[in-house]
Every structure is written in C-alpha cells, then in structure tokens.
C-alpha cells in the first residue's frame, strides 16, 4: 500500500469519526431528520471531493463544519425560492401532517421548534457556540464573519429563544389542569 493511500484512509477515518457531530449540528439547523442527513451527505461529498484542500494537521471538525455551514446557507436561500413552487404542487394533497418524533419529549420539542423560529444566521451562531462548544474565534472563522458580529448573533439568538420559550411556556401553562 502506498503512503498516499494510507494518508487517504486516515483522512476518511477522521471524517467518519466526525459524522455524529455533523449530524447533530445539521439537526439543530434544519430540524427534519432526513433533510439534516441530506445536508450531512452533501457536506461529506464535498469534503471527499476536496480532500486536497484539507491541509494535514488542520482540525477535521472545523474544516467539515465550515463546509457544512456554507452548504446550509446556500440551501436556506434555495429553499426560500423553492417554497412557492412546492406549495402549488402539494395543494390538496394529504401531505399536511409531519409526524413528530416519538422519542422527543415535550420540552425538547418545544426548544427545537423555538430554535427553528429564529433566523438561520442567529440559529447557526447560537448552536455552533452553545451546543457545539466552539470558541468565538473559531466560530467566527467557520461562519466567515467578524467576531463582533458573531457575538451579537449569539446574544440576540439567546434573547430571541428565551422570548419564544416564554410564549410557549405561557400557552402550555394555560392548559394543564383538570376539573
């Protein structure tokens, strides 16, 4: 086996090890499980086709997250445009119900829904720092924005999330008692 092939295999192994983390980030970004995995798959495909761009020694996680984030931003733009077309195609169909994942608790579902309701930019910043645990400097580099912008997105995202959760909590509190 040549040294080159071995290096390739090591890289594949390193990428494989990051899949669970990528899936988590994707799930937080787009909520729906299959769409999230599609995003991860796009990310992996792009990563594999550009392995030469991955300089040895560079943290594979950061590299992959950066790729996936760019794909997410592109997709968010595309989905916005696509929405009208899909809506027409589905009129009158029975595709209205999206089954909730049985395994999700009410509390989890609520915060996942709230997260989807905040803007994609703030959502990404909040998740990459708050869930994935990257530093501001790392996150700013990955998202391609200045650190100050990142910070304000994290802060606003948190504030927005809090407001949404309060609204949901209030609505839930209203319907809990029996006679």
């Amino acid at each position, binding site marked *: 086996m040549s040294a080159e092939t071995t290096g390739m295999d090591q890289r*594949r192994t390193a*990428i*494989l090890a990051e*899949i*669970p*983390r990528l*899936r*988590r980030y994707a*799930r*937080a970004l*787009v*909520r*729906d499980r*299959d*769409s999230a*995995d*599609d995003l991860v*798959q796009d990310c*992996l*495909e792009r990563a594999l086709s550009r392995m030469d761009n991955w300089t040895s020694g560079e943290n594979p996680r950061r590299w992959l997250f950066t790729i996936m984030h760019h794909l997410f931003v592109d997709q968010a733009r595309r*989905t916005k445009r*696509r*929405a009208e077309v*899909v*809506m027409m195609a*589905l009129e009158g169909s029975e*595709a*209205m119900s*999206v089954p909730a994942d049985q*395994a999700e608790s009410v*509390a*989890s579902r609520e*915060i*996942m*829904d709230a997260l*989807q*309701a905040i803007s994609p930019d703030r959502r990404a910043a*909040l*998740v990459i*720092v*708050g*869930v994935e645990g990257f*530093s*501001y400097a790392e996150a700013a580099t990955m998202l391609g924005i200045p650190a100050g912008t990142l*910070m304000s997105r*994290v*802060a606003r995202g*948190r504030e927005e*999330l*809090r407001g949404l*959760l*309060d*609204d949901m909590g*209030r*609505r839930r*509190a*209203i*319907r809990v*008692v029996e*006679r």
Partner: protein
Amino acid sequence: MTRRDFSERDIHLALDGELPDEDRSDFEAWLESTPEMKARSLRFEADRLRLRAAFAGVLEERVPDRLAMRTAGETSSPIARALRWRFAAAAALFLALGAGGGYIAGIRGVGLEALAEDELAEEAIAAHTIYAAEQRHAVEVGADDKDHLLAWLSKRVGVTLIAPDLQAEGFHLVGGRLLPAGQKTAGLLLYEDAKGNRISIYVTAEGEEKAKGIYQLETGGASAVYWLDEGWGCAVVGTLPQDQLLDVGKKAYRQLLAGAGMV
C-alpha cells in the same frame, strides 16, 4: 485596582467561556449584586442546558448507512435521494408554514381564543393583587352583610352567585366587590385564613369557550386557577402553593356551579 463596568454582554461572554480570567471574580460579584442580571444569567444557562439535552441523543444514534458508506467510498442512489429531497422540502415547508402560520395565528386567530383565558386570569390576578393587599378597603360589602352582597353581585354580574364554604380549608369570607371585566362586570369574593393569607374568587359572565387551567404571570406573584365554561368564567387567585390553591379552587368551583344550578 478599578473594577470595570459589566453589562448583559458579559453574561454571554462568561457563559461561553470568553470572559478573561482576571475579570471573573469581579463579574461574579457584579452578578451577586444585580439580582436581575443574575436571574438572566441563570436563565440563559438553563436554556443552554435544555438545548444541549434536546440534541444530545443525536450523537448516540446509529449513523445512517448512506452517510457511512458514502464516506467509505460508495455512492447512494441518486433517485432515492431526489425523492427524499422532495419529501423533505415539502415537510420543511409545512413546518415553516406551521411555525410561521402559527405565529400569525397566535396573534390573530388562535391567540384570540387563548386571550380570553389570559384575560380572565390576568384580570383576576390584577384584582387580587390590588384588593387583597388592602386592609381597610379590601371589600365594598363585608361578610356581615352577606345576603345583600350576594344578591347585589348576582344581579350585577348576571349569574347566581353563592359564597362557597371554605371553612374546611381554613378560609372564611371577608366580603366582596364589583369590578369591571371587559365590557361586562365581575364579582370578587375575598377570603382569609387564620394567618391572614388571602384568596379571591373572581366570577364573570364573560367567556365564549370551555377551558380550564392554572395561570401564573412570568413575573411571579399570585397564581390563578380558572375555569371558563361558555358564558361563565371563574378564577380562584392566591399566592398559596399551587397544589393547595388548586385544591381550594376546585372545592370553591364545585360549590359555585352547584349554587348557580349548573351541575
């Protein structure tokens, strides 16, 4: 050494591990001296824990074959992929419509329903907060003139109102008063226990739906146990522990219903 000024911004920095070490103890001291900011900080921390918990399970899931195989150098069927994408796009759209639509409906339609409950509970809590704190002017008509009080309130509110007997729960009637409730009127009956704890029973002929629940303002304070039953709204308000309030509330409500001939 001068202590720098802190702001809400520092709460985020601290939470994200971005606050310089040398500022840490001053920041902690600032938090302790600013209860509002301390509460904010705890809240953000709690939300973050909840967020992490919600997605923690993803790390334990088995990686779908299509992802693992792709990385190992195999490809998945482009047709299956295209179909899945179309479904996912549709699903995402409906989620978006659900969320966005729900949000708008929350202000317009759905919200109006919820608002009736909110309003009943909030008005009842507001009335309680104002009048239960009054020592000399808590009620317009005292318990010593109970028959007159009930006849008057029944007539003005438009329901047959009785004063529930809550002796077993330790509460006796102090008296009552008439209040505005939207375009209509509400009757308030104030009760007190031996320790001076007060609860109020708020009754109105308003409300166009059936609903029941416990309601507490975000700011804390008194809670309301309430019932709405098509043209009949009742809230029992107090600062008792919620279990106890619920218990007293149910007993009062059953008697009110019986008294009004609604059972």
